[in-house]
């Protein structure tokens, strides 16, 4: 143990020397200020989630940047990466949120609690409101593997710490959206939008929706909730005042996944699965505005676990998780669905964050 501590001191010392190195202090940009961040969810059993960085200029890829920078593994399943001001919030559904500097990825704090008294159980996403963190958490499974103790955890300090209160929600809260003085919560299993007043102690009301809610989308000044069933996907327009569903666009796509990438002009790319027995995944190009399928077979492959859209080069990024056998690959497609290049990723790449 002592040796380890010594090693820690030496590492800290070397970092200090590194940071004092005058030849280095002219780098104005953080190492990860520009480029593509690839969210690698990781395997649940091995907790090997982390982030990869791709440099658009040099084509260089760095794997496991959290571990590289902080000299310890991320040790979690990376569910979501949420930016806010100078920070990235790395949400691990294994029960913690790691907070890092947006440009350097240096750890600045965490929400985790202690082993005997965990602050979080299965966090899924996060939003900042009123200088507080609101973290959606599935809570523990009950004896029938149901999520009946889901909640929003509130942390008063933006750089982490303890949970100050837990507000019960409908089952399995996912993505969050801040509007007016409220937070809208997409609850997956309950199929509701829960409305939580910022600063409040309980969910004020739950709006039932058709389909399983996946994420909130802003389009042409409208606020949409993307939801899906096994036979169709839905874009529910949410009234910005009373949060009722004012209009619904339904598109008949079988077995759609929650993975969607918004492009331009109301167009989007969505991943669906062919189902038994082939399990080929498909990307369909749709128009949310017109409610039409533009190209039902834009791209086909196996196990496409994440999708993103780069507005600068107008390219579609799809991730192949390689059957969770080792690390995955990001496949870059042009507007015609032709493969332009591939980028090696970490384990189970599930999303992309473009910093152009």
């Amino acid at each position, binding site marked *: *143990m*002592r*040796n*380890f501590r010594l090693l*820690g001191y030496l590492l800290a010392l070397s970092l200090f020397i590194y940071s004092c190195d005058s030849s280095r202090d002219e780098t104005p940009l953080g190492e990860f200020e520009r480029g593509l961040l690839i969210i690698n969810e990781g395997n649940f*059993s*091995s*907790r*090997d989630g982390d982030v990869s960085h791709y440099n658009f200029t040099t084509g260089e890829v760095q*794997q*496991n940047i959290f*571990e590289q920078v902080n000299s*310890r*593994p991320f*040790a*979690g399943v990376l569910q979501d990466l949420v930016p806010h001001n100078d920070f990235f919030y790395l949400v*691990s559904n*294994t*029960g*913690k949120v*790691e907070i890092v500097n947006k440009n350097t990825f240096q*750890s600045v*704090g*965490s929400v*985790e609690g*202690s*082993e*005997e008294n*965990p602050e979080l*159980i299965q966090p899924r996403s996060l939003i900042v409101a009123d200088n507080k963190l609101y973290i959606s958490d599935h809570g523990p499974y009950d*004896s029938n593997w149901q999520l009946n103790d889901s909640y929003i955890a509130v942390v008063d300090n933006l750089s*982490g710490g303890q949970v100050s209160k837990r507000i019960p929600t409908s089952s399995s809260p996912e993505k969050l959206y801040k509007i007016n003085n409220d937070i809208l919560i997409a609850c997956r299993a309950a199929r509701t939008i829960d409305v939580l007043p910022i600063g409040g102690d309980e969910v004020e009301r739950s709006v039932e929706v058709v389909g399983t809610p996946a994420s909130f989308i802003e389009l042409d000044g409208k606020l949409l909730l993307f939801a899906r069933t096994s036979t169709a996907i839905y874009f529910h327009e949410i009234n910005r005042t009373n949060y009722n569903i004012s209009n619904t666009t339904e598109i008949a796509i079988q077995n759609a996944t929650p993975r969607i990438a918004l492009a331009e002009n109301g167009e989007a790319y969505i991943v669906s*699965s062919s*189902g*038994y027995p082939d*399990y080929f995944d498909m990307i369909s190009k749709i128009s949310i505005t017109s409610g039409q399928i533009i190209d039902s077979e834009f791209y086909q492959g*196996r*196990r496409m676990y994440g999708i993103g859209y780069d507005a600068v080069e107008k390219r579609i990024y799809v991730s*192949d*998780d*390689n*059957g*969770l*056998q*080792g*690390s*995955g*690959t990001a*496949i870059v497609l042009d507007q015609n669905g032709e493969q332009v290049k*591939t980028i*090696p990723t*970490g*384990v189970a790449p599930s999303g992309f964050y473009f910093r152009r």
Partner: protein
Amino acid sequence: MLLISLLYLVSLSLDTVTYQHSLQDTVELHAIDVYAAPLEKFSHGQTLQTIDSRDLADFQGQAFAEVLQQRTGLFLRQYGPGMLASLTMRGTSAGHNAVFWNGLPVNSPSLGQADFSIIPVGGFDQATIHYGSAGALYGTDAIGGAVHLNSRNQFNQGHQTRINTTLGSFGRWNQLVAYEFSNKNFSTRTRAYRNYTKNNFKFNNLARAGSPEERQRHAAVEQFGAMQDLAWNLSKKQQLSTSIWYNFTDRQIQPVMGSNDRDQQLDRNFRAVVDYNQFSSNLIWNIKSGVVLDEIDFNGSLSQTAQYLLSTDVDWTVSEKLQSKSGIRHNHVRGNLSSYQATDDRTEFYQAINIRPISDLAISINLRQMLYDGTLAPFTPSAGADWTFRKGEYNKISTHTTISRSFKIPTLNDRFWVPGGNPDIEPEKSVSSEIGLKQELEKDGFQLKNQINLYSMWVDNWIIWLPRGSFWSPENIREVRNQGIEYFGSASKTYGNVKVSLSATYNYTLATILNSISSNDRSQGNQLPLTPKHKAQGNIRIAYQATEAMINGHWVGERYVNTDNISAVAPYGLLDLGISHKLKLFSMVNTSIGFQVNNLTNSNYQVLRLRAMPGRNYQININVNL
């Protein structure tokens, strides 16, 4: 008894680590031993290692996994102390080794592997490791090798009572009580044990900001069990023996660092075997019947499997130059799991032949054909030979070689799991060859043995579970080449009252993935994950009269986390130190007391990524024999 004496070949020495591939000499039976078919008899050309009984004594009540990890060149994937430990042999996967208890196959038919963490030292008397492909000898699973755990019962020993106690750090308390009685024709032995550890060791939690030192929680292990062995000499030519073992393990599953999981696993294992042996001047006829019942209760979800085994074989010594063994084995398997129920019938025919054309050359030929569920498993032949090409007064040098096929039939889960089980999945198969050189020297109280093996193996149809839509499904997808070197060395010298013994092993394992599972897979040419290329182990013992001191070290090279070979778990080395003293109390009571320091250097290490392991810890062994 005389007949048994004549037929019994090679007794396994319990005093030193022995590597038996050598020519077998007909030696006199320890007339007191209950007969057990000698494992090495038809294994010419291969390497068998019997674990030193003193090594077993050091680990009383602990998991057998610890013995293998610390005292052999084999690597076990350990998910924490006392947690799941699966064995990899010669770079193969966890299920690629066959495990037998008194001749019964005990790999779980649903999982296809054994958990060496729930097999306590004390649950058997003798452990023998068979290195390398041995499907023709043992049937399914023995692609990388096999492990045999046997009871060793005796006649004519009178009454004996044994009480073994181990106390140690982190709440360890292992207790075993054994009573045995035997006369000329009857032997009984009863053992009961309870092993407990709280496992609340300190570790640096790498999953938390700042990697704070914490105490491990939720990793307590409680185990208890009982064994009964019985043997009768029914007549001068007939012997009946039976062993029954019940083992119960209640484990809090140690969560991976950064996890708040609170999983609980209960393992209930019942094994019973009956052997009937009939001896004539040149024949031994054996009938074996056994039952293996396993139950895993994981957070209330039950998995039950049962194996009912019946086998018979005839071991025929045709002449000094020719021996034969012909047999048939039937195993009826039932699985009752949360997602499916299934049965499987496995029938095997086997033939083994030993030929000794000249006294220094011995050849074994083994053939086996298994039928499972109406399907033919790959036909498995093997041929091996030992040749002693130099024999002096004190020195002996021999070489050996073997070429063999092996296989592993798909597990019940592979075939029947709902959803995803693949009824059409094929057995995994391998072809393996090896060559070795062995030197033995014995002169004036000095003993020196060196052995080196080189092997090359090709495994195809390797089964991997891949995600297919919303569930996972197994496929015969991977092809792997395993190549490596095994070194075994031992030396001992007696100086008056002092005996110094040294032993060392080194394993170099290249397990290379030969194919890609998709166009974007970058694993081709890489080392299999969780498989160290290097493992070394060494042991020094110094005995002076009734006192013995021991130092043991093992070192494990880096293990890749994934097939991409990007991240690896750091190499580690552990050093253990022990001292024990034997003394006689009241002229009747033999006792020994031992003190041991494990992980002397307080090395901060993980066997598998993010699975915490304990730092320096202490243990006291007290053994009383009446």
